[in-house]
């Protein structure tokens, strides 16, 4: 066990750094740039039952200290993920991977989870319940604690792998949703997904995104992530994975002090392809600077 290692739901990670879903494809593409085995693990592209193109373009916009995306879960569908993407990943990645799952109904969630549960390389199932436009009275699964619990329970029934519920920040009471997931059997909580936002083009006087709204990510949302990780970590007993605007080793330490066991890095990968490597490489020095011997010692240190 090194100074950077942490334990996430019974699986040892060499370090807590996890590229977030939607910013790292199926991993093997990034292996052209660096050895992805140096990562703790990564969360692969959000996978749904059916193949999806996602929303019309433009579906990316810039903001002060961040960006909006309205990609809309483009992915080849779970069958192709299993038959085409995971075999390519297996050739270059020799650690358990985090499978990220999305759905538009409980049946879709369980269908995809059941399929990915059988994949040997999948270590954890990260279930994204912050996707809008899902069935259930037009309310997204992640913004209602009863729905969040219902998905958690349904998914837990079809897998023996650790289930991580990925929560939306677009709620008034994040703690009640996190607790509902924990009570329904979630093995961990990850947060925050992107913050629903929008921008308007002054020249065209129309929204910049064809989808009108999109999710804000990048350093702009980091303080929000710290606050929500802190509140949730205080309230639940399962591990919390922190994410939202993380760009440096200092950010990683801050989120871990707020209660995160591991940390996902999202938007930073898009502007700095080597972001995760740079963070991992600089962690020991930054830990020395703040008198930290082992990262596990600081989890929840500020609680």
């Amino acid at each position, binding site marked *: 066990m090194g100074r950077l290692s942490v334990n996430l739901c019974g699986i040892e990670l060499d370090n807590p750094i996890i590229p977030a879903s*939607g*910013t*790292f*494809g199926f991993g093997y*593409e*990034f292996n*052209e*740039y660096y050895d992805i085995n140096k990562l703790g693990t990564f969360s692969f*592209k959000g996978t749904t039952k059916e193949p999806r*193109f*996602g929303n*019309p*373009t*433009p*579906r*990316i*916009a*810039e*903001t*002060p*200290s*961040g*960006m909006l*995306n309205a*990609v809309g879960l*483009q992915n080849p569908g779970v069958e192709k993920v299993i038959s085409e993407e995971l075999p390519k990943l297996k050739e270059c990645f020799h650690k358990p991977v985090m499978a990220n799952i999305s759905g538009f109904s409980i049946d879709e969630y369980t269908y995809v989870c059941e399929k990915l549960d059988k994949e040997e390389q999948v270590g954890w199932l990260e279930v994204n319940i912050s996707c809008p436009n899902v069935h259930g009275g037009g309310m997204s699964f992640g913004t209602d604690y009863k729905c969040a619990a219902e998905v958690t329970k349904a998914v837990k029934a079809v897998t023996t792998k650790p289930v991580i519920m990925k929560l939306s920040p677009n709620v008034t009471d994040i703690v009640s949703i996190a607790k509902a997931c924990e009570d329904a059997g979630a093995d961990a909580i990850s947060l925050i997904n992107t913050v629903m936002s929008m921008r308007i083009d002054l020249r065209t006087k129309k929204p910049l995104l064809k989808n009108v709204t999109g999710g804000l990510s*990048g*350093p702009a949302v980091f303080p929000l992530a710290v606050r929500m990780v802190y509140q949730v970590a205080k309230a639940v007993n399962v591990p919390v994975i922190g994410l939202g605007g993380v760009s440096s080793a200092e950010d990683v330490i801050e989120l871990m002090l707020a209660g995160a066991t591991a940390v996902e890095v999202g*938007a930073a*990968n*898009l*502007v700095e*392809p*080597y972001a995760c490597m740079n963070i991992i490489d600089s962690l020991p020095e930054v830990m020395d600077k703040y008198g930290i011997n082992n990262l596990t010692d600081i989890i929840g240190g500020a609680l």
Partner: protein
Amino acid sequence: MKQSIFEIIENTEIALNVFKMSLNGDTADIRAGQFVNIKLEGLYLRRPISVCNVENDILTIIYKVVGNGTDKMKAMTAGQKLDILTGLGNGYDLSLSGENPVLLGGGVGVPPMYMLAKELIAQGKRVTAILGFNKKEEVFFEEEFKALGAETIVTTADGSYGVKGFVTDALKNIDYTYFYTCGPEPMLRAIYKATDTNGQFSFERRMGCGFGACMGCSCKTITGNKRICKEGPVIKKEDIIWED
């Protein structure tokens, strides 16, 4: 993809709101039709700009000032350093050109045609370049294309210089074996309709990463979904599906 630091050698206005920037750095493996992605201080996303030319260690890009990013770029001076991702996108496939290809560039779609013309001419092809602009003040690089040995035709929409009209008006009067084009999408659509000959189109999209990670710039094609930044920006005519 390669990440490296380039040093600005020159940055000058060559036409109305159009700047040419030359940079010194690692230009290995940059192909015609590719783009670079530039980190600018104070802006979160990198700025994708097409490659105009590579000569030894010198990269040349040409950009029009249209927003926050290019506004920052125009104020930069020789000696300043930039963090740039190079070798992005597929680039043009030169093997399909035939003996007499035509290259059509519109506005800041002209620059990528320059390196392509240079390489095709080096292969012994007889190249015609049609360079389209709105008006005389925006015209650039006519002499540079002529100096390469390309048969060069300039069009302006208002007729203030060269042939009056669009690049498609000039295209009617010439013979060619194949075409390559880059420019605003209405121009690309007009070319698609105007010719039965095969060719390659280079597309522009708002991008997140520029190297295939975020899926922000995807488009649908006959051969499946493509990322403009990775499987594009160059797409063959027979693969294109025009969206509304």
